[in-house]
């Protein structure tokens, strides 16, 4: 990746968690609810939380990303989105080229809102398409069809969006490389700026996880997962996409998800809304994943935090390593030494050598990064740096 050209920055970012969905998909473990009665109350509370946070920390940095995640943020009324954005613009220094991303579902109602999203200054869309196979979409409990997905994408282009990402999921039970390839082909045909391709995971407390435990679902075998992972890499690379993080591809460095990349750069960010997480001044905290708790706390003048921790140097170092190594550009050796006052290669000589010797990692110029083979074993490798 060409660092000069790449859409990455070390400025802080803002994340907003919008916890509403029309339907809660069985695999998803992000916090959301389907009862949308309290949506207006939530928006008011979100502003209160933001304001309170600003009071606690005197913040004057310039932020250059805003990310509406969820849940399904595209379910917000235009007025609600406008209120939030207006509030943020008033209370934060936002960079001129601030990346403002909205996650959306390819449903019909959202499609109509696209020109208005654009008008509000939203300049990046992340569309949860997940698959271009209707049978797979039903298995995933998605409420849209392949046709609707394509229509949504085309409508977004028509509305003037020139930075669109698609989310896809692979390694579904019984999925074959053929159907997966079909989805990838359809995705590439739309020529999106960004593709996130996630291996289906079974997270505790999701219906899929419980079905797995009851053996109602047979997960893909490790070998198959590997095959999907490598096939995705190969297919998208051949089609001009750059694999820049475990699950993320971009058509061009300029379209890296600037916001998400902050997580892997270990850059500070503030998160608002239930279940949102923040990293600021060497501290991490997270809000409780509960809308009622969220509203109640803020009504009582309290922040809705679930936990907070101050990272010691050792933890920071480990985080830095495991976050950086999830990216294909890897860890910048000079930056590491600057930050932690010791050489990465010397401090981790043994494991580093083992990884390089066995082709799981490599040194490229001033960086240490995992190879494609190593990336498939990322979690196993990262443990070694604890």
């Amino acid at each position, binding site marked *: 990746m060409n660092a000069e050209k790449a859409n990455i920055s070390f400025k802080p970012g803002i*994340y907003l*968690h919008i916890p509403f969905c029309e339907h809660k998909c069985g695999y998803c473990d*992000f916090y959301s609810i389907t009862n949308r009665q309290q949506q207006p109350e939530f928006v008011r509370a979100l502003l209160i939380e933001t304001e309170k946070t600003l009071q606690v920390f005197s913040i004057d940095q310039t932020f250059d990303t805003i990310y509406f*995640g969820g849940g399904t943020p595209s379910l917000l009324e235009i007025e609600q989105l406008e209120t939030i954005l207006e509030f943020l613009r008033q209370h934060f220094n936002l960079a001129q080229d601030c990346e403002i991303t909205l996650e959306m579902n390819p449903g019909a109602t959202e499609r109509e809102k696209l020109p208005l999203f654009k008008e509000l200054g939203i300049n990046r869309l992340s569309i949860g398409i997940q698959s271009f196979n209707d049978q797979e979409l039903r298995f995933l409990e998605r409420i849209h069809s392949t046709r609707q997905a394509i229509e949504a994408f085309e409508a977004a282009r028509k509305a003037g969006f020139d930075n669109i990402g698609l989310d896809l999921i692979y390694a579904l039970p019984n999925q074959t490389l053929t159907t997966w390839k079909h989805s990838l082909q359809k995705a590439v045909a739309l020529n999106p700026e960004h593709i996130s391709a*996630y*291996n*289906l*995971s079974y997270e505790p407390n999701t219906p899929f996880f419980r079905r797995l435990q009851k053996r109602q679902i047979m997960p893909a075998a*490790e*070998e198959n*997962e*590997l095959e999907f*992972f490598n096939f995705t890499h190969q297919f998208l690379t051949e089609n001009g996409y750059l694999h820049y993080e*475990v*699950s993320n591809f971009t058509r061009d460095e300029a379209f890296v998800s600037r916001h998400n990349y902050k*997580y*892997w750069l270990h850059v500070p*960010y503030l*998160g608002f809304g239930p*279940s*949102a*997480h*923040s*990293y600021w001044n060497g501290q*991490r905290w*997270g809000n409780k994943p509960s809308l009622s708790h969220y509203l109640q706390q803020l009504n009582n003048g309290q922040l809705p935090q679930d*936990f907070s*921790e101050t990272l010691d140097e050792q*933890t920071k170092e*480990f*985080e830095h390593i*495991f*976050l950086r190594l*999830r990216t294909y550009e890897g860890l910048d050796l000079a930056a590491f030494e600057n930050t932690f006052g010791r050489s990465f290669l010397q401090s981790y000589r*043994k494991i580093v050598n*083992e*990884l390089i010797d*066995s082709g*799981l990692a490599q040194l490229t110029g001033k960086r240490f990064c995992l190879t494609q083979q190593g*990336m*498939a*074993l*990322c*979690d*196993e*490798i*990262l*443990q*070694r740096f*604890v």
Partner: protein
Amino acid sequence: MDQKYIRNFCIIAHIDHGKSTLADRMLELTHTISQRELKNQVLDDMDLERERGITIKSHPIRMYYRAKDGHEYILNLIDTPGHVDFTYEVSRSLAAAEGALLLVDAAQGVEAQTISNLYLAIENNLTIIPVINKVDLPSAQVDVVKHQLIELIGCSEDEILLTSAKTGLGVEEVLEAVIDTIPPPKGQPDASLQALIFDSVFDNYRGAISYIRIFNGSLRKGDPIRFFNTGREYQADEIGILKLRREPVDVLNAGEVGYLISGAKNVKDIRVGDTVTHAKKPADAPLPGYKDIKPMVFSGIYPVDSDDYEDLRDALDKLSLNDSALIYEPETSKALGFGFRCGFLGLLHMEIVQERLEREYDLTIINTVPNVVYRVHLKNGEVVEIHTPTDLPNPAEIDHIEEPYISAQIITPSEYIGNIMKLSQEKRAVFKSTSYLDPTRADLTFLFPLSEVIFDFYDRLKSVSRGYASFDYELEGYRPGNLVKLDILINGEPVDALSTIVHQDKAYEMGQRLCRHLKQLIPRQLFEVAIQAAIGSKVIARQTVKPLRKNVTAKCYGGDITRKRKLLEKQKEGKKRMKQVGRVEIPQEAFLAVLSMNKED
């Protein structure tokens, strides 16, 4: 008291045949102990003993009993340890007595251990009183057992006493028989002091305490004393008799049993079997039968967490204060780091030490596969004893190797003879003889290489005989064997802790099985793991643990980095109990792979 009113005796019995219960009844009957004081099995001190229902330490006790002849007698019951590992201790306890009760369970009949201890008693010229216990059990076969006893010791039927130690039935008759049948001690009161040390214990406040039997002469408080075989001299700071607790006295006379506190700090300074004499007026010779006991089985003990090394050393120091048979020396293993090579009397002794380290000292340890002591004859004529396979000299320098053999006695219902023969053959045993205790119970003797017995023999014997066969052994001596060192290499590197010495004929099969088994025990990792078995430089077996291929979380949980980090830390924690050898992480179970191999099949 005149020696003719003293009786020193012990009880020979198999585990669970009721020895401790009978002892408890005697203590009650002689008012040595009130019912209120009586916990079950008073004489067994350690929890572990009580749990396993076995006695490890003998604890002599003095009772006063007014017999039917109107005289009051001193009865010294010398308790004996009840396991094959402690044969020498048993023999010394027996040597302190003039007679023994041969106690047999009416339902179980005579067992191997009973017989081997009986032989020890006969060797020590003890008068034997046969007793059948648990005669009130519905499953009691009193006639069958009577017949076995008659065959075994050639007694007449009416000499056999019948008891139920549980109900107290027949216990008084036993005490009367002790007085009538067992001869009183016949020591010379005026001769120079000769006292046998038949056991020793460690007391936190008093140091090492010896249990002694005065054979000749007398011992007075304050006497200067000498231990014959070690040559060490001390002073008799305190002497006394043993009831439930120690009771100091001024003098112990010929024929008496008591204790001696002499200023010796460590039980290792007091050798069981040694003779105590007067330092100024020493006896001409020690009592016969002293042996330097040597450990038979060795195993490495390593802390799982290398930070616990010092704690492990402290724990071994403390354990050995009370266990003169336990020896240990520091050892370094390439695979396991710093630890100790420990010597044990046998497998049970080893297990007891391991369990006490974990239970009483809260240590998590890895113990390596136990091995016997080999005698290696070098081409230059030198003979070296090796305690660990890694110490085996270069094959080019070796003329031949000798290994210890045991003489084993197996008593079994006759229908299992075939199975036992087969098992014995597999274990390289040499068959010696068969005799029959009664038409259905056979008494088989074999010579076994000890090394074959320490690998899962006992469990297999129990399984091929449905639990009915009993087994006992004593060391026979060394015999040459066609032995080789079998090394295990992980990714080309020999793992010292996994080396074993095996018979040449079995090496190939053993190597194959060990590799297969290790493959099950070593989890897949980042790299391919090659497991090889080799003799010298020749690889005889190989298995491969395929590397992990994919393990990556697709999402980083939004901005919830904490969750991701904790997951990684938790996964790492799960691997902490593994030992890293080269770049391979090996779980603890793998170091005992040889022992668990049979469970795999």
